[in-house]
């Protein structure tokens, strides 16, 4: 018989740590939860207050302006179809969740990406953490999110932020590191300070790459909405989740296709932001 080695108490340790955190910091997380939830509610009711046809026209016009006629027409047709499927409200809820999560992810990811690009040491710490965040099954984040933030959209957005921030960090760092060495040298040769170099050369040159990262973040955030529905995030994910529980394949497909349409619209529009023609044509 192999002598039985006692199991390493990893699960127990994490539980204890989380319990401790919940006990001592739940006042903070609960307050945060209320604040975020208030913002989400406000945006959702704001968007729902606008008549759907008007909002659809506005979004289609934005798509046209930013990404051209084809994307404008795609946006118009797609959103009208969603409205027709009677999925307008869950679509708005999902969009809001993605929007909030993406804003938070960018607010965290951009500075971290810059720090990782400019400091080797920061990069060495951040990169393995990113690998961890991305490979850990996303469900796992949901479990501790509930005691901290309660059931609902806030927990969902926190889990979504954790899952979707890495591309913004990675591609921000990549974009800044990719700025050609001779341009950095030129900036130095004219006596730029580090801050001037960052804001006048490195960041502007990295914009297309950073936007590719933000685009990835949005796509990942959208892919979290179904999973987040399991803890009551609602939206299109909630519709899918309901269809699964009631075994209604038709309804499931409807909601699934709605998610695909929303994803395509967000993807096409954000892909174009920042990839302004002047940067693409030069160098």
């Amino acid at each position, binding site marked *: 018989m192999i002598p039985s080695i006692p199991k390493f108490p990893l699960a127990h340790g994490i539980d204890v740590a989380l319990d401790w955190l919940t006990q001592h910091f739940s006042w903070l997380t609960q307050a945060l939860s209320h604040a975020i939830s208030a913002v989400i509610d406000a945006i959702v009711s704001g968007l729902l207050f606008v008549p759907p046809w008007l909002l659809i026209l506005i979004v289609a016009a934005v798509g046209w302006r930013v990404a051209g006629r084809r994307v404008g027409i795609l946006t118009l047709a797609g959103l009208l179809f969603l409205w027709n499927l009677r999925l307008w409200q869950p679509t708005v809820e999902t969009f809001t969740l993605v929007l909030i999560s993406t804003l938070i992810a960018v607010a965290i990811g951009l500075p971290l990406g810059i720090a990782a690009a400019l400091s080797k040491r920061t990069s060495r710490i951040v990169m393995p953490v990113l690998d961890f965040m991305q490979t850990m099954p996303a469900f796992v984040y949901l479990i501790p999110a509930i005691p901290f933030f309660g059931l609902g959209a806030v927990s969902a957005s926190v889990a979504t932020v954790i899952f979707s921030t890495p591309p913004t960090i990675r591609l921000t760092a990549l974009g800044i590191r990719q700025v050609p060495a001779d*341009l950095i040298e030129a900036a130095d*040769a*004219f*006596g730029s300070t580090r801050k001037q170099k960052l804001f006048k050369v490195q960041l502007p*040159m990295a914009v297309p790459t950073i936007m590719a990262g933000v685009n990835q973040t949005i796509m990942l955030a959208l892919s979290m909405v179904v999973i987040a529905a399991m803890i009551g995030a609602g939206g299109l994910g909630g519709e899918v989740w309901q269809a699964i529980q009631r075994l209604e394949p038709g309804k499931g497909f409807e909601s699934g296709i709605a998610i695909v349409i929303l994803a395509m619209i967000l993807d096409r529009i954000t892909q174009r932001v920042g990839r302004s023609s002047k940067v693409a*044509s030069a160098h």
Partner: protein
Amino acid sequence: MTKIRVEKLTKIFGPHPEQGLRMLDEGKSNAEIRETGQAVGIADVSFEVQEGEFLVVMGLSGSGKSTLIRCLNRLNEPTRGHIFIDGDDITRFDREHLLKLRQTKISMVFQHFALFPHRTVVDNAAYGLEIQGIDPDERRRRANEALELVGLKGWADAYPGQLSGGMQQRVGLARALAVEPDILLMDEAFSALDPLIRRDMQHEMMQLQQRVKKTIVFITHDLDEALQVGDRIVLMKDGRVVQIGTPEDILNNPANAYVERFVENVDMSRVLTAQSVLQRARVLAFPNDGPRTVLRKMADENYASLLVVNRDYTLIGSISAEAASQAVKDGVETIGALVEETPSVPPTEPLMSVIGILADWRWLLPVIDENNKVLGVVTRAAVLTALAENNDTSVSDAERSDAA
């Protein structure tokens, strides 16, 4: 006045530069130092640049010239030695002073232009001014002036990606000139351009220098370019200075075999001038000489013609042996009426165009100063000899005298 003085400047790359310095002082070779993981960028380089001088630093790749020019504004931190600019040792400057120096006194033009693709031409040209915190109207005005200086008026709102290579480098030059620096560092500035455009740019650069009178340190690996633009040339090899001198010094008195090998492929006719093949005019004719006198003077020196000058040695023309003989037969008293018009060149005339003139002019070609005074003569034989010698520097003196 000395603008830049470089004193025993050394740059060692690698994790332990002090070890490299020690080995350098022990007289170890670059290869031996490289085995320890250090690399010698430049070693004990000293030279001076005068205010308004166009100094060319020339050498093959790996000779340390790029390292050297980057030490002058401390993009490369020198390991040892001093750089004095206007008497201040900039190797001791703190970061604040260094930034100030780069912003206002020294600017740089890069081999691959290094323009900012996300900025318009005028915003590129204004970059240095923007860094100094000059307000937008003022910097736009000064950037536009600089663009006009380099011939890019009307391109202010284009993006660099829309311009040809030659025009992009003009933007690079405008960006450097806009801050009105004392010193211009040009790192292989024309090497990425195709040959025709490169020649134009060299030409324009020299004209521009007449107007702006900057102190220029210009890096190149192209000796023809160095000879063309440089007032003086610093020749480098393996991080060390091999020779410093004017283009003619370097061509005519190569310091060692390395320089000799370097210069042997130069097209001498573009580099040498009438001055370098000038001979003293041993005899001259005067307008009131008799034809017999003139013929005797020619016979003494074995000339087929003579230059005719006034008493103050200003040039009138020349007279040929045929014309003088005819005059003797005709019983003419003086040669004054027989003088033929004669082409002449200044001492700075390149040999290339001297050759062109001598193709049509069979007699002595006078070299004159700005007052039309004869300094000497150039003969076909002298030109050919000069070209033959300089194109054949590897031939030893013994062989040469054998051939003669």
